[in-house]
């Protein structure tokens, strides 16, 4: 490893020897085009999902309001369905529901995955054996089948409850990935050094290990987020989705069910499809940007 000079040497930091990683990351974050593009897109879609429904006259997007199977025009911006439902109204409500199921499912799964993965990877030994066994058991349970049973018996009514159940079943692969990463980082000597500085287990996990995989954790959240949306769509497909409201998955499903593709009603399936793609895609682009922000080696481009 050679000592190449810093391309833009910062002012001698003798006065501020205590590093402030947070502030510095922000400095790079606001200058990273990928991150800005990704985050902006997600925020726009989120804003549409939050604000859009409020601006509609009717609270129920499934009402039969217009002409049947009309192409987009001034009144119905995204056209109408075979039954005369306003696709735009469904889209904005669907965005909201999709965000909700993604956030709830993704967040619950991410939290469980992190607790299990970090604890198993860092502690090792018996803790690891037990948690690993639990993870493997949940991993081999056919999650979709369990969700089917739960939904069928309990009758899931709201999107949030659907998200909750999805979250409770979709964490194992993420926990395994975090465990493996933690395992390899744990043996790095900077972890020993942190222990020699008197740091405790959770401090080491969150201040030393987690920052090294922050972009990885974020990517994991994105995948869990996208996964939740897809699982929710599958459940919607077989009629076990939330009985109230609409989601992008549900829209895609009815479009498919009523042969929108064959009938050339592109306005019915493109908005929800593009919506899902845009959310997940934008999060992915943001993730690549975040990687550059968090990893100082990638900054020097």
């Amino acid at each position, binding site marked *: *490893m*050679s*000592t*190449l*000079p810093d*391309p833009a040497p910062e002012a001698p930091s003798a006065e501020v020897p205590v590093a402030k990683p947070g502030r510095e990351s922000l400095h790079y974050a606001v200058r990273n085009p990928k991150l800005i593009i990704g985050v902006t897109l997600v925020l726009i879609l989120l804003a549409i999902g939050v604000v859009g429904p409020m601006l509609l006259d009717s609270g129920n997007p499934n009402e039969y309001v217009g002409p049947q199977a009309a192409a987009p025009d001034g009144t119905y911006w995204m056209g109408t369905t075979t039954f005369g439902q306003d696709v735009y109204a469904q889209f904005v409500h669907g965005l909201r529901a999709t965000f909700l199921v993604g956030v709830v499912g993704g967040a619950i799964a991410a939290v469980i995955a992190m607790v299990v993965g970090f604890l198993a990877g860092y502690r090792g030994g018996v803790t690891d054996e037990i948690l690993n066994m639990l993870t493997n058991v949940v991993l081999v349970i056919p999650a979709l089948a369990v969700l089917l049973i739960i939904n069928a018996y309990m009758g899931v009514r709201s999107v949030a409850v659907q998200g909750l159940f999805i979250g409770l079943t979709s964490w194992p692969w993420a926990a395994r990935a975090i465990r493996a990463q933690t395992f390899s980082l744990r043996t790095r000597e900077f972890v020993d050094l942190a222990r020699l500085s008197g740091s405790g287990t959770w401090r080491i996990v969150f201040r030393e290990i987690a920052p090294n995989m922050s972009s990885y954790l974020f990517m994991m959240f994105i995948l869990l987020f996208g996964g939740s949306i897809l699982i929710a769509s599958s459940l919607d497909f077989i009629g076990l989705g939330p009985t109230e409201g609409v989601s992008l998955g549900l829209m895609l499903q009815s479009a498919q069910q009523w042969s929108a593709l064959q009938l050339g009603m592109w306005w019915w399936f493109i908005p929800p499809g593009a919506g899902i793609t845009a959310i997940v895609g934008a999060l992915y682009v943001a993730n690549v940007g975040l990687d550059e922000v968090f990893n100082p080696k990638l900054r*020097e*481009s």
Partner: protein
Amino acid sequence: MTLTVNDLRVHYRTLRGEVRALDGVGFDLADGEILGLAGESGCGKTTLGKSLIRLDGRMRHVGGTVTLDGDELPLSDDRAMNAYRFHKISLVPQYSMSALNPTRRIGRMIRELLASRGVTVDTDELHRRLALVGLERDVLDRYPIELSGGMKQRAVMVISTLLDPSVLIADEVTSALDVSNQQAVVGALTGLRDKGLVTSMIFVTHDLGLTSHIADSIMVMYAGKLAEKAPTRTLTTEPRHPYTKMLIGSLPQVGARYKDKPLSGIEGSPPSLLNPPLGCRFRDRCPLADARCAEEPPVVEIAPRHSVACWKAA
């Protein structure tokens, strides 16, 4: 002359510009000669070894020629180099022992490797060569994890020399090993040369003490250039370049004690090769430097086979 390197220049492309890792290096490698290549990290010794085999994507051949057994090597033509790699010139890289596929037995790995090169294995010959480097033939039935670092390193050496190459480049093969394993590996390398399985060898290392045991001559590099090259005995006992002198001076010998006589290292670090300074590159760290050193010293043969690039050496 097995190998003749003439004014070789290889640059690395980086985001900040071209790093001149090798900036005009020339030397000869005689038949049967083992050349020790020494210097600090970043002096270009690994780059030199790699350039003779394969330029990776970031490396660019900027100038100079390499002649092997009378043929000029097509350094920048990756395809054409295939005819020479492994057949005529072979490399044992630094971390070769971790490069062994952990899921394959050594024997199977060798068969597969040779098959991919269109060569069949002569099992008896293989066994003879394993014995030569001090390995039992049953290593062929073992997995890499069952061998020690030194054994793996020797197994890789046998694999690399199966086709009797003219030149074998051993890049820091002993750095990660314990002293007793170092001795075994060095012994194995010398054995390969003595039996004529390898004509000549380049032994890259930062350990001058070890180099002095195996090499016939030693070349010291600094910042991408040749600093001094001489027969081993001459270089270690009568070094002329201040860098060589300081390098030898910083070497603790068994029995040397801090209490009796503290050794000293070399202050500072090698210059960045992105924009190397003009003149002698060792100038900033050299205790003898004066105004003349602002001009680049040429490589001068001050005695037969003893070349130095320093104004103060003559």
